[in-house]
């Protein structure tokens, strides 16, 4: 892989990978470190560059760094998400409403199993299609649909319950 290709990899996927790890661990600094390490590994191992394969690969390297290095530690037994709502154009009263909604979602999403949460948030927050998610996680579209429907069922149940 040339330096130019490496730069392309970084520009195209860094944000997505970092968010992906964040969805899994709920810790922004750790997600940043893991993603940086993953890119360094990608460079050191000198894999050949194929746009689609490399995309799956960088997700995989990052995921493995997370799973093997951190997930087991007691700090991550319970995930805590904290997201930012960034639209200022709406009314103050609505803003408050959205803030409440955000808190509700943060709480419920934190309870969702990791593999459902990652798929749900990749779809909703980054507007990735099921096919795009499937490519990145090297899974079938069917598997993504399954996780998505489980996540939706869970959310529906919890939100109505509130």
């Amino acid at each position: 892989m040339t330096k130019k290709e490496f730069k392309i990899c970084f520009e195209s996927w860094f944000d997505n990978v970092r968010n992906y790890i964040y969805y899994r661990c709920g810790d922004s600094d750790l997600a940043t470190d893991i993603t940086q390490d993953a890119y360094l590994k990608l460079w050191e191992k000198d894999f050949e560059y194929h746009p689609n394969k490399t995309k799956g690969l960088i997700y995989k390297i990052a995921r493995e760094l997370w799973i093997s290095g951190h997930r087991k530690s007691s700090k991550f037994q319970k995930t805590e998400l904290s997201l930012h709502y960034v639209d200022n154009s709406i009314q103050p009263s609505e803003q408050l409403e959205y803030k409440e909604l955000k808190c509700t979602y943060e709480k419920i999403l934190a309870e969702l199993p990791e593999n459902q949460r990652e798929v749900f948030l990749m779809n909703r927050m980054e507007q990735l299609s099921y096919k795009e998610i499937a490519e990145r996680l090297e899974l079938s579209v069917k598997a993504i649909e399954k996780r998505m429907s489980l996540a939706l069922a869970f959310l529906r149940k919890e939100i109505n319950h509130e």
Partner: protein
Amino acid sequence: MNKNPNISDEDEFSFFENLKVPHNRPKEDIWEELAKSIDKEPQQKKSTVFQLKWIKVAAAVILLIGIGSLSFMRIYSIDITSQKGEFTEHILPDGSQILLNAETSISYHPYWWSFSRELEMEGEAFFEVKKGNKFQVNSANGSTQVLGTSFNIYARNDEYTVYCRTGKVRVSHVNSTQILKPGDYTLLIGNELEKSIITEDEAISWKLGKFIYNTTALDKVFDDFERQYGVNIKVKNSDIYNLNYTGMFDRNISAEEALEMICLTFDLDYEKISNFTYVIQ
């Protein structure tokens, strides 16, 4: 469908679109750090590629040696043959014993023995098999499988008989199969294996150094005789082959004494032509 009384599906989508993960460090900082560390490393990269090549070569060589020795183990075989008039004892790699009767041959793969206990045999032999995996004896007319036991196989010409002394033995010929328990005896009749009754002394008489015949065709008796004493017997009048002999004698007595015993039964005469040739009249 509303998930929350206060928000529509559409709003929910735009709500999520406006949600962002709050990251402290901007992407640009990270690229700068990465760019620094990757500029440091060009030499190291070459050596890992180089190593990888050698690992591949080494793996290929090891694989070739492995395949080579495996196929040698598979193909290499030992043949053991006992001559006329002699018994041979052979111990297989797992400690199982084979006692070969006169004019019998076996063949097996000694280095493959631990993977598959299988051997070829023609003639007659007594097996004392150590317990273990399947032990299989193949002959032209059938095959016998056991786990650990002792048994006798007679496989000459068209004849195939098996006597089980201890343990359990499975005998098969084409589609016909018999399971033998201690004391059972089976013989090939046409294309079918059939159970029959025999005493242990009869079945493995040769091993005990005895000849035991129970209404046995005379030509078979003489065949046996030739094998055991390593002599030739010629018959002037082949009609006597229709006679059946019943009797018993010890292996210790000389060929002449034994021949005399047989001839006496049928009122026949024999003549010694040379050291190893007799003619029956």
